[in-house]
């Protein structure tokens, strides 16, 4: 408990009903109590998007797995539904009241992706947030002006680790 704790993991089976969306947020917020508030809030936003998609298009139950290791939060939602999330090429038209969920995931997550089950219709949608990479981790988070934490614009990777964006693209190319 407290700051700097490594290796926390939560795994919960949730019914794909609307109430599970708030439940998933609570689980992720609870796991990330040692993280900066803005990272926790973004994690709650992202898991809400994943669970909303599962409730709409998934099977009967979802498996939520959240791990926190060394400031890196990884959250995955698995369901047995065949529907795949689709990333719209363009920003949704203003008359469109849906379709922004993955846009949010893509802009807020440091990394994200989809993994298809072997021999079944199910899939896992996951995202990562790195507390150390969040440019707003040291700000108060109120202005919302400098929140773009996409890994391909991240500039504070230390030393000579310049290959991270390549992995990101591989993650997406499997299904986008």
């Amino acid at each position, binding site marked *: 408990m407290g700051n700097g704790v490594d290796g926390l993991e939560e795994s919960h089976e949730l019914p794909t009903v*609307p*109430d599970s*969306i*708030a439940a998933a*947020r609570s689980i992720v917020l609870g796991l990330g109590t040692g993280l900066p508030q803005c990272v926790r*809030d*973004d994690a*709650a*936003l992202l898991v*809400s*998007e994943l669970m*909303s998609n599962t*409730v*709409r298009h998934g099977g009967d139950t979802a498996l939520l797995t959240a791990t926190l290791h060394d400031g890196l939060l990884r959250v995955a939602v698995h369901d047995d539904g065949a529907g795949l999330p689709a990333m719209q090429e363009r*920003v949704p*038209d*203003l*008359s*469109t*009241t*849906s379709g*922004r*969920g993955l*846009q*949010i995931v893509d*802009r*807020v997550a440091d990394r994200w992706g989809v993994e298809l089950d072997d021999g079944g219709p199910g899939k896992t949608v996951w995202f990562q947030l790195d507390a150390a990479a969040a440019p707003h981790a040291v700000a108060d*988070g*109120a*202005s*919302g*002006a400098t*929140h773009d934490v996409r890994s391909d614009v991240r500039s504070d990777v230390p030393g000579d680790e310049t290959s991270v964006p390549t992995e990101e693209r591989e993650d997406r190319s499997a299904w986008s």
Partner: protein
Amino acid sequence: MELTIMQHGDEAGHSTLALAGSIDLTTRQSLVDAGVGALTEGALLTLDMADVEFIDSTGIGSLLELGRIAAANGARVEISRRSPRVARVLEVTGLDSTWPAATTEAGSFTGDR
């Protein structure tokens, strides 16, 4: 977490809904219903979102739906105060320029060209 909606019909033709709590798949319809009800009383609906602790893309969709319904009836919806989380999600979705803190004309988010 639930969504609390308080309506203030402070002026003729202008209603304000003060929102507190979460706007997601569970609560979006109650917001749309309350907004549609308020719009029958006037041509301007103001949403005070200062106490909205959580909103996701589904919640954003309900705001856009209200705006579309308003525009179809010659009315408009504006957002007055907004919490940091509301500002954050509007920014991430690119709607902060479309829906600035000041009054937004209904036509600007109906998709009309």
